[in-house]
Each structure stands twice: as C-alpha cells, then as structure tokens.
C-alpha cells in the first residue's frame, strides 16, 4: 500500500538538515510520497525505517525469474488486472506435461517441432512439466534428464522429497521450478528448493490454506514462489487464479503477490480443443505457467497469436521488419505490392494476397508501425519514403519486375511516385484488403 507523506514523515529523523536537497523533512516526505525522489536521498534514515518503507513500497506482485542463460524467463511483476490500464509485463509461458507413462522421446520431439517466428517473437513451448508418478527417484531423475536435454526450462511437479532431490541434482543449474509444496510438506520442500536455489511451487485445496502456507513460507524467508491453482475442477482453478491475482493487485495483499501455475492438461484431460479454449481464458485471466497435455501446431498458432496480442504495449503498435516478403512462391519476375509495416495491416494484406494464389513480392517499408492512412497523414508513407525504401533495399537489383501496386487509399501518390521512380509502372490497388483477391486475379 502506498504511504502518505505524513506516514513517511513519521519515519524520518526530523533533523531538517537539508542534506536531501529539501528544506525540511516534511517537504522531503511529501516528495517521496509523490514518487518525485527516492528515500535513499536522506542519509540519516534508520535501518528499521528503511525496511518498513521498502516493504510498503514493494511492488504488489513479485517478479520470479526461472530458467537460465538464453532460456531465462520472468513471471509475474504485473501491476494491473487489465491490459488497457497499463502494459502487462510477463507473458504467460507454456509447458507440455511429461510423465513416466509417456513415450518421452516421441513427446519431446513433437514438442520441439513447434518452433517458429511471428512478428519478431520466437514461438515455442518454453517449459516441460515433468510430473512424478511414483516411479522412484532414479527413474524420475532419468526422465528429468531427458526433458532437460531439450534445453527447455523444467517444472518438476513432485511432492516426494527424495525424487525432488534426485531431479534437482541433474537440472538445478537450469533454473527449474520445484512444484511440490503443500500445507503438510512445505517446510521440507522449501528447504530442498532453497538449497538448490530454485523457485518453489505451492498448492493447497482451499485458498485459505494456500494463503496460510505462503505466509508460513514467507515467514521462513522463502519468497521465491509460484502458486499452483490445483486441479479440483475447471471452475475451481479459474476462481483461484482470479482471486489470487485480484487479492494481490486490487486488494494489495502481497501474500498472494506471486505468479500462478494452471495445469490445463489435468483439468481437461484428453480434450485438446477444450484445453486450447481454456488456455485462451487463462491467458486473459491470470495464468502465468499454463501446462498442456501436448502443444500441437494448430493450438500453438491460435494461442501464441492471442498471447502476442494481449501482451503488446497498448501505446505501441506491433511492427514487422521492412523488407521483401515473397508470397505464393514469388521470384524476381513477380509483380510488387507495397504496404506499411503495421503488423495488423501486414497480416491482413499478406493473407489476402496468399488467398489470391498470385505470386507477388510484398514490399514493406518503414512507416512507423502505422496504418496506411495514419502513416500517410503523418508523412511516414509518401512517394519519398517508398522511393527511399526501394533504393536502400536495392530492390531494383533483387527484383526484375517493374510493376508496383500501391494501396488504393493513397492513390494520390501515383503521380509523384511515377516522377520519383521513372522505371516503374505504378498501379493503384484496392482500398480494402478484402478486395485484393479479385484484384490480383484480374490483374494477372
């Protein structure tokens, strides 16, 4: 909870020595409350007061770091419940579930097949959830080792102390999560996780019990936690995910200020479509790690697209890289089509061009990530910017075809473009992307 100036003032030494740059302790306290200066500008604060202040000004939800090296991921750290209030900072991560009953090699191979780029973001299954099913510590460690060999970060779903220790022995350097604490074993599991230096997953049947367990863990000094919403039912998992996040961010109860784990594969076992639907729900409503039975390409295409949309900065549009995008097997003799780098425009236009079946080179110039008319109005899309793009990307050397189709909404550019690009035949295209299929077919 944010402190008022008066509350901060009570913690200052009240010397009015001006060393902080403010005329009085009171004035300084007011500035701190507004966030204009930080408390460390006063050299005379007592340790005790500082501890109290840092507790009070700590973010409502902790950021938990898992994984290692290139595979390091951040979870949590959110400050708002809805993306229109402020940017959401830590996208949810996906895990595929693996148990001793699975054909591990086949399952892991299928998982690693989903790996592609979408608007500059690598889309893949970031985590493997290795679930302990009583096969014994050695067998579990061997399975964990196999999963670790994929390079992906692991979630060890294991409440058995010996198996957890054996598993951590083979993978603790990779920053796994040990998801195995509950109200009856949390002390032992916390000791194991702390010793290995990894985050601890905590679960309980009820929110009250979960809360008490987290409070006890925090009291014992472990604040590197992830909260598992359990698998009692879909409704129960959803309720817990929402209530935990709401308690942390709206009601400012930091005991619940941790990221969550939702085992969707367990609450919708054997139903891949239902799992996809639920993953969409938990992407919006407060799942941090989403465990699926599998991740097919079909699920990934929809779910990663959704996640990428939800975790964009509302102030900043998504952009694609300027360049040549050949469509339908286009080569240097295929016609050129140009539009802006706003991701949404790019997707819609490239989709329609693909549907037309006509080979063409889509030329994307830097238009500041704006839509066609906005970019044109802002001077980011003009005869000059397109001509410059064609020169800088040496399009004339790369493509022999000299026909360039421009967006119908900027038909006014035709004359000026003909002047700037005398070798080119400038053709005015359609005003809406949906008309492109017919236009391209007719054009051909």
């Amino acid at each position: 909870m944010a402190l008022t100036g008066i509350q901060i003032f009570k913690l200052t030494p009240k010397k009015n020595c001006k060393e902080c740059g403010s005329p009085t302790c009171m004035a300084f306290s007011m500035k701190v409350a507004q966030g204009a200066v930080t408390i460390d500008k006063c050299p005379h604060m007592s340790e005790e007061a500082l501890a109290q202040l840092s507790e009070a000004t700590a973010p409502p939800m902790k950021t938990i770091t898992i994984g290692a090296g290139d595979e390091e991921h951040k979870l949590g750290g959110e400050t708002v419940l809805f993306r229109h209030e402020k940017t959401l900072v830590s996208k949810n991560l996906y895990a595929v579930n693996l148990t001793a009953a699975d054909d591990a090699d086949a399952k892991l191979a299928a998982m690693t097949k989903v790996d592609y780029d979408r608007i500059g973001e690598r889309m893949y299954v970031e985590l493997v959830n290795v679930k302990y099913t009583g096969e014994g510590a050695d067998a579990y460690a061997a399975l964990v080792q196999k999963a670790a060999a994929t390079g992906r970060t692991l979630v060890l779903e294991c409440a058995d102390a010996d198996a957890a220790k054996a598993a951590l022995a083979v993978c603790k350097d990779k920053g796994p999560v040990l998801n195995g604490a509950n109200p009856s074993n949390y002390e032992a599991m916390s000791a194991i996780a702390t010793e290995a230096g990894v985050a601890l997953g905590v679960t309980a049947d009820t929110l009250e019990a979960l809360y008490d367990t987290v409070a006890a863990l925090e009291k014992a000094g472990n604040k590197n936690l992830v909260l598992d919403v359990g698998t009692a039912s879909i409704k129960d998992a959803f309720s817990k995910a929402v209530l935990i996040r709401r308690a942390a961010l709206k009601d400012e109860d930091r005991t619940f200020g941790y990221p969550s784990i939702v085992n969707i594969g367990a609450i919708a076992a054997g139903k891949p479509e239902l799992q996809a639907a639920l993953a969409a729900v938990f992407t919006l409503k407060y799942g941090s790690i989403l465990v699926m039975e599998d991740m097919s390409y079909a699920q990934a295409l929809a779910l990663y697209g959704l996640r990428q949309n939800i975790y964009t900065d509302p102030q900043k549009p998504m952009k694609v890289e300027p360049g040549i995008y050949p469509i339908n097997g286009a080569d240097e003799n295929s016609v050129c089509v140009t539009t802006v780098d706003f991701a949404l425009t790019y997707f819609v236009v490239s989709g329609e061009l693909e549907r037309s079946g006509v080979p063409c080179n889509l030329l994307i110039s830097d238009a500041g990530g704006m839509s066609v008319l906005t970019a044109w109005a802002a001077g980011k899309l003009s005869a000059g910017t397109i001509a410059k793009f064609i020169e800088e990307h040496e399009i004339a050397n790369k493509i022999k075809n000299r026909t360039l189709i421009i967006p119908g909404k900027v038909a006014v550019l035709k004359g000026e473009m003909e002047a700037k690009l005398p070798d080119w035949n400038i053709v005015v295209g359609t005003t809406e992307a949906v008309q492109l299929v017919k236009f391209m077919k007719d054009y051909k």
Partner: protein
Amino acid sequence: MPFKLTPQPFKAAIKEVEVGCGAKAIKLGGEKTFPFYSFDAEMPNAPKVGVEISDLGFENEVAGIKDFYGDVTNVVEMAKKAAAMEGADFVVLRLESADPNGVNKSVDECAELAKAVADAIDAPLAIMGCKNDEKDGELLVKVSEVLEGKNAMILSAKEANYKTIGASAGMAYGQKVGAESAVDINLAKQLNVLLTQLGVKGETVVMNLGTAAAGYGYEYVASTLDRTKAAALGQNDDMLQMPIITPISTETYGVKEAIASEDDMPEWGSQETRAIDMEVVTAAACLASGSNAVILRHPASVATVSTMIKELM
C-alpha cells in the same frame, strides 16, 4: 491475518435481453459480475452459443462441417440440423446471397427464406445481413417485418443504417436489434445513444462491439470488451449495459491459419484442426472478457465452447 474471500459484485447489472419464443427462448446478460466470477455472484444466464449457417450452403466449408450437414440440400433443413447441434443455443442465418457484388438475390426472396427458417425451428433465430450497408438497410427491415412475433435478433444496425433497421426491428416489429460498431468503446456507446434517441429501448439492444481473430489485432477487441464491461458495471453506464454478442467464425475462417491447405503448410498439420482451434481460442478469449454470446460454425467448436461455459458456470 487469514485470507478471507469477500465477494465483490457490482451494484449495476448488464441488461437482460430475451431472444426467441417458447421453451427454447434464451436470455442474454443480467449479470452483476465480470464473466464467470461466480465467487462474486452467480451469473443468472450462462453465455450462449449460436451456430452460423449461410444461405449459400456449406460447399466451401471444412470436412467436419460438410459431414455434419451431410446430404441436406436446402437452407431450411440445414437450419434444423444446426438447431439440433450439440451445444447450440440459437441459430444464425447469414443472408450472404443478398450481396449486390455477389449473387444479389432480391430482398423479398431472402426475407421469404428467413421466414421459412424461422417457421421450421423452435430455437431462437438471429439474422445476419450481407455486409453491404445499403442492401442490409433494406433487407433487414423486410426481414424484421416478416419475422414479426418471432422475437429474432437482427444483426446488425450500424451507424450507416441504424435508422431504418432500428425503427423496424426495434420498434415496429418487436425484434431485438444488434448494434454493431468497430472495436471502440466510444463508437459503441454513440450508436446505443443514437438508437435510444430514435426510440429503441435499451432492453431490446444487443451490442456487437466488433471482432478480430486471435493474433490479428485481437488486443483491441479484448480491451474494448474489458473497458465496456468495466464502464457498464463499475460506472453504471446504462448506454453500455447491453449484452454483447460476438461473431467469431466470420472472422476466424478468413485467416491464414484456417485457410492454408495442408499441402502448402505440411508442418502445420490438419487444416480442419487449425480452423477449430482458431475458432475456440478466439471464442474463449471473447467469453473471458465479457461476450454474452458467440457465433460459431464447426460442430466441434460449438460442443467445446458450450462445454467450457458449463464448466465455468
């Protein structure tokens, strides 16, 4: 201090709108909470699932949809099957053939078909136009007239044609008016204000706030839905308290993920599975942010989304 769950329902509520007649009639809205926040208060009415059929038939659909309708040869029979689909709450007839740039069927012919469909099924019916604002302005007026007494949902009145559609569907013939705006809370509110000023009662309006497939600018849809529900419930804005209906399939069946053939994209796998996943993911996202009804096409999607709603209620 132990954790204590304090229910936080809002004082304001979403308006409750009934569509259809008799035992199969459905109610949309009525809740005082964000979607599925049953710990705050039960939602009086579960969100509903509509099945979209086109008067152009199902020739170009994926195999699972074709198989479902099988040897059906006319739209009325298709509607009967759609109404009986597992998980279906209502049927949505899309009068695509009215499109002046397409088949360009006459308004009377289309209205006659709408009437025949309405007479053949017990399930509530929604009618979608052909997306040509001018033609829809005539078409949906006529449809509203011939469906008098059916309490159908007319999709949709837009800024360009709300006067004629609002007056006929919402006032003269007692239908429910879909108010369609383009993914912007202010535009949505403005259209509701215009319809109200025209004399259409807020209780007869459902909003289509616009939509996008997952991955295709869906963030605007999510935020528009979130902000609309927050304003309706949190600020008691009665010009945004209409229930929300979101067509899903009309968007998702147009994107690359659902269209690209397996030959073109071998690593992506079955086109049909991709189409279903795009449909259920987009629908589930909309429901999580507050849609009171979604419109889908594939039987597997309808079954999945309806199961999900039941599980979350």
